């Protein structure tokens, strides 16, 4: 049970963060008697009760007790998460280990479950520490029978395996990549992508599918890049060019360029980015406060894609745009707006006086980890990551950066105003506008902050004393704290009222630097249990960079964080984004778990291709459009989605890309396409805020949360998205969850979807609008059928299509003789809109 003891003790996190360890060898000269005594009385206790959680494998709380050099000693500041020394040689009463095994508090006791150590065992530990805690060096042990202790060498192998994990290795060298591409040249290969794909495909004995027909291909690439079907003219030109040259190669290159330069490209790929960064127009707190300014960030993202902003710059602006130099007000504003990415972190609850900032920061780190690095960093909030080499110290090293950042406050039930938004007018103008109110707001802010500090201090004290005092004392302490909290709430309400009275300037939902500070580890993720302070840093496995002293004193370190993330030696950033692009084009990633490149994630099917694309991204000055061109102009992308029977037995899931993957239209593409077919799609971007109620009128509470809806005929990317109340349509068709990084969209098939196609007003309306156009545009049945098929399916009808549809038309003409013609043709359109051919991209 000692093993569990150590779970909370938290000694040094050895292997991966050895930087500030104090190595105080207990080993050295250990006499034979002491050795004997340790092996007989102490090691068995550690082995049986501690090591399950506190050895090299687990190191809970940063403590390991399987290796003497790992245990920090006497008088030195310990490196455990708690910041306390587990063992102080000669000082049992100063040793956290002894405190924990004798504690009766649920929070502190070790082992955490089951019976406590016996008095005899505790006495043995005490005696050992008293006599200097001598610990024979592991390797000198002669009692070879002691297999319950993982040996030092085994332990380091485990660590090595983690460090050797493919995703943490540098990208393959240019030479390696060149060699592997050269190995497979043939006529089939159009560009390097095909070389990598072909060699793996051949290695697995798979045949390659034929090329897709030009109609399927034009439709595929148009949806890939714009989320909309190709225009009738684009289809015709593409088909004609393919027919005249014999293949689609030249036509494809031209169409790809055309689509990449269309503003609809940024809307499509901006929407993908919004999936990953869980974009929403509300904050996600109890009352779901609206953020009228959020659209500025959305439009920033769309513009960034359209302008092919270098990806490293794109990330840097989102993490630290406010800290970059700017030549003009426009540039400054654009960069400020970019940090809306950080502002977009989820908000919680309703209270200003107990606002859980640690959760908002967790959400920030979680999203940054998944989206940019393909790592599940937030797992390390309460304990070292179970699978990946990410320690609690790594987590709080990044936490400090965001704790030194001032997030805007979008409003809460008990703070019904916006605060700390970032002005978009010149500073003097902002000052002048607010002049009459600023001193009052400052004073009230200071008052609130003072009260919040008092509450925090008291909460920490209470938490510390909780285990030692009686129930009555606890009640009294809690009541006192409640009283202080109410005072803070009142101060918050006063401040919010003052803010609502003040005039406002145009501003952005964005972040700024706050007082720079390093964070303390929160034991088990609980803010009321502060442990050791950790310098702001990048995870060890990715380099472990720390801030220079002068920077640490003057800034949050966000700019440095952005530099670490986008550093060309960081093996993850480029790989993760090219894999995301691949995934959205092919339906699966080269690494299937697109947001998890860690040890529990999937291995890459084509590691060299992944590295080649990542290298190309960096080489092209991080141009995402360059990556699109490489992928979309490859022969691999042109393949038909048809099956080859002999391949199915070998590779039914098409891991080796011998054909195209058929993909279901996502919710946005479906809605936009239906509107487009009906002639109702408004293609102008939304460049003004949604018609939210005015801030002065905000009274949203958890009882009456913000629930408005602002329908429009613009592209779906511009629809107002709420975090608490999802639109039924987007629930039905697997829309993104605006609360969390949506790595890829489900492609579910449900009866409720079918009901939508059968009976929904929206579908009927678009079918009728198209019918109106058809009836005017064409005279004969055949012409009208052609028109409908081309509009809905993006191809000319086959003879069988015409026959089947004509039979339906003829039947309806008898049944509906007295009805207007448009009803008959609307019926045809509805039938076509329900087709699998329409719903899936071949």
């Amino acid at each position, binding site marked *: 049970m000692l093993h569990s003891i150590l779970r909370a003790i938290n000694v040094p996190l050895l292997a991966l963060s050895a930087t500030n360890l104090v190595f105080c060898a207990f080993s050295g000269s250990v006499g034979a008697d002491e050795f004997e005594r340790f092996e007989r009385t102490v090691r068995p206790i550690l082995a049986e009760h501690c090591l399950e959680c506190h050895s090299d494998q687990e190191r809970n709380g940063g403590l390991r007790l399987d290796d003497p050099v790992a245990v920090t000693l006497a008088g030195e500041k310990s490196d455990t998460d708690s910041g306390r020394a587990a063992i102080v040689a000669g000082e049992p009463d100063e040793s956290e280990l002894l405190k924990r095994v004798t504690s009766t508090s649920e929070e502190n006791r070790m082992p955490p479950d089951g019976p406590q150590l016996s008095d005899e065992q505790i006495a043995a530990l005490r005696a050992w520490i008293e006599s200097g805690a001598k610990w024979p060096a592991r390797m000198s042990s002669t009692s070879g029978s002691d297999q319950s202790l993982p040996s030092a060498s085994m332990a380091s192998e485990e660590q090595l395996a983690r460090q050797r994990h493919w995703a943490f290795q540098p990208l393959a060298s240019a030479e390696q990549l060149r060699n592997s591409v050269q190995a497979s040249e043939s006529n089939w290969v159009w560009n390097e992508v095909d070389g990598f794909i072909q060699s793996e495909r051949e290695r697995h004995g798979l045949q390659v599918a034929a090329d897709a027909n030009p109609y399927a291909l034009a439709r595929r690439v148009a949806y890939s890049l714009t989320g909309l079907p190709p225009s009738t003219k684009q289809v015709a030109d593409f088909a004609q060019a393919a027919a005249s040259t014999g293949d689609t190669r030249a036509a494809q290159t031209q169409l790809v360029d055309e689509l990449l330069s269309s503003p609809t490209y940024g809307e499509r790929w901006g929407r993908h980015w919004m999936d990953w960064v869980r974009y929403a127009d509300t904050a996600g707190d109890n009352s779901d406060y609206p953020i009228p300014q959020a659209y500025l960030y959305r439009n920033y993202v769309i513009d960034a894609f359209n302008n092919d902003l270098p990806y490293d710059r794109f990330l840097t602006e989102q993490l630290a745009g406010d800290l970059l130099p700017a030549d003009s007000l426009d540039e400054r504003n654009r960069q400020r707006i970019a940090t809306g990415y950080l502002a977009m972190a989820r908000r919680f609850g309703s209270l200003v006086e107990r606002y859980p900032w640690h959760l908002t920061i967790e959400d920030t780190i979680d999203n940054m980890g998944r989206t940019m690095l393909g790592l599940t960093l937030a797992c390390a909030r309460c304990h070292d990551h179970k699978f990946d080499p990410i320690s609690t110290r790594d987590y709080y090293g990044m936490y400090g950066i965001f704790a030194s950042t001032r997030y805007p406050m979008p409003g809460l039930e008990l703070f019904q105003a916006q605060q700390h938004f970032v002005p978009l007018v010149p500073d003097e103008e902002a000052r002048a506008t607010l002049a009459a109110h600023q001193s009052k707001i400052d004073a009230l802010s200071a008052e609130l902050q003072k009260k919040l500090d008092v509450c925090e201090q008291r909460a920490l004290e209470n938490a510390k004393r909780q285990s030692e005092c009686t129930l009555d004392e606890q009640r009294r302490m809690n009541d006192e704290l409640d009283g202080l909290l109410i005072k803070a709430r009142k101060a918050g309400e006063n401040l919010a009222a003052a803010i609502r009275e003040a005039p406002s300037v145009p501003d952005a939902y964005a972040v700024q630097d706050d007082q720079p500070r390093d964070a303390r580890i929160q034991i088990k993720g609980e803010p009321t249990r502060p442990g050791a302070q950790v310098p702001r840093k990048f995870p060890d496995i990715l380099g472990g960079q720390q801030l220079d002293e002068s920077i640490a004193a003057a800034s949050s370190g966000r700019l440095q964080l952005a530099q670490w993330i986008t550093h060309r030696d960081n093996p993850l950033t480029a790989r993760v984004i090219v894999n995301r692009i691949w995934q959205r084009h092919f339906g699966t990633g080269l690494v299937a778990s697109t947001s998890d490149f860690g040890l529990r994630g999937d291995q890459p099917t084509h590691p060299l291709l992944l590295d080649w694309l990542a290298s190309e991204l960096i080489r092209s000055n991080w141009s995402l459009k360059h990556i699109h061109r490489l992928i979309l102009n490859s022969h691999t992308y042109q393949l038909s989605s048809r099956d080859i029977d002999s391949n199915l037995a070998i590779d039914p899931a098409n891991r080796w890309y011998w054909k195209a993957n058929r993909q279901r239209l996502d919710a946005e593409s479906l809605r936009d396409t239906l509107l487009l077919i009906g002639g109702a799609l408004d293609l102008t971007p939304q460049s003004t805020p949604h018609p939210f109620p005015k801030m002065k009128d905000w009274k949203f509470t*958890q009882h009456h949360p913000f629930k408005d809806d602002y329908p429009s005929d613009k592209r779906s990317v511009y629809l107002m998205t709420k975090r608490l109340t999802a639109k039924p349509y987007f629930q039905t068709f697997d829309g993104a969850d605006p609360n969390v990084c949506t790595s890829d969209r489900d492609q579910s*098939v449900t009866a409720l979807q079918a009901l939508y196609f*059968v009976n*929904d007003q929206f579908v009927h309306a678009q079918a009728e609008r198209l019918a109106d156009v058809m009836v005017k545009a064409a005279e004969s049945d055949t012409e009208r059928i052609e028109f409908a098929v081309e509009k809905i399916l993006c191809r000319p009808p086959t003879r069988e299509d015409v026959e089947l549809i004509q039979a339906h038309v003829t039947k309806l003409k008898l049944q509906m003789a007295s009805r207007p013609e448009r009803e008959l043709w609307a019926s045809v359109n509805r039938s076509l809109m329900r087709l699998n051919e329409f719903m899936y991209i071949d």
Partner: protein
Amino acid sequence: MHTRRAAIRSLFSTSLLMPGMLSQLLAEESRESSDPMLPRQPHRPAPAKSVIFIYATGGVSHIDTFDPKSTKQGRDGSGSDRLMGNVFGAQQNKKCGTEVSNIFPHMRDVMDEVCLIRSMRASHFDHSEATLGMHTGSPTFARPSMGSWVSYGLGTFNQNLPSFVVIAPHLPYGGTQVYASDFLPACHQGTRVFPGDDPIANLRSPNGGATLQQAELGLTDALNRRHFAEREHDSALAARIKSFETAFQMQLAAPEAFDLNSEPEHVRRLYGVDRKVKGPGADFAWQCLVARRLVERGVRFIELIDTGSRPNWDSHGEMNEHAELAYNVDQPMAALILDLKQRGMLDETIILWATEFGRTPTKEGKNGRGHHRDCFSVWLAGGGFKPGHVHGVTDEIGKYTLEDPVEVHDLHATVLHQLGMDHERLTFRHAGRDFRLTDVHGRIVTELLT
């Protein structure tokens, strides 16, 4: 799967059967192997097959309902004279002796069928968080709802109705997140149903013509099957062809399930469908009777939400609000227990009644109570839960649990257990982690089980 498929194909390759029939067979085949909605075997044989989860929004006072306390006005630990006992009086059930307040007379009479927990502890002190905690196990980050987990784990019996139906005239705190499938496949999300004539969206044709609709679906089907013939290995395409048949059936099956006209007079009277009721929760008799009809028709998980985020049981200023709300739900809930019992369905159905937290033993405002996290009451009936049993003891004023505390994760683990699912094995891999309804917690409260 491919071998079987090949077998079917070879069986027909020399026959004169229409190619359409072949693809239909293949479609059935791929549907069976991939349809997440088909009923699945649980981890272990178990008594319960379905769940009716009744959720009372706002925080029902345990002190004035299922854990009545006859506290006299007095002083609490903070020194102010604010203690207040049950304001409605209470009586015992004649068979099991369980005491219930007088605003739940019908429930009191069926307490011998009910397993009552008086020692629940809420996951949070505020509405939205505690509501999400009770539904998803997570008071903070968005996670799948309990109903979605059950649908994911067990599938459902009736393919013409959704597996997880939420009958909610109003949304509770937390909005649609309370019944969202989150990272679980979308087919497991709750389908929200509104009391009244149009319970499910898109059940009725906007242009009203069944013949026209059938003709259209016929054309779609013919074109779809031709398309499928060249893509016969794609089970998603087959499933989607089938989904239109299901949708067509649902247009018939769903209205029938929600139509109470065929219920005999004595049943309608039992539930109080035709009682005069007003205010929040007025549809509750309809909701309860429909719930029974849905369980009968093979819906796996049904949630009934009585009131929305406002007005509801959140009686900060006036406890008498509880009396009106109780009147609307008391008789229908008791009727549901009796009706299922009488039909022999209670053993296979878990009825779970819960709220987000209890209310303070001290007075707030004129005659109300605040939020109380440390203890409150929930109850279960049927599904192998001990009838007439009371679990957990609170102190004399209803402030702290003295014996057998139960956490939300424990409650979830126990419900899953009675459905045959091991809460530690019901997992879904998402973003690098195996997620569970019970996170890393949960103890099966065996003391509640027969």
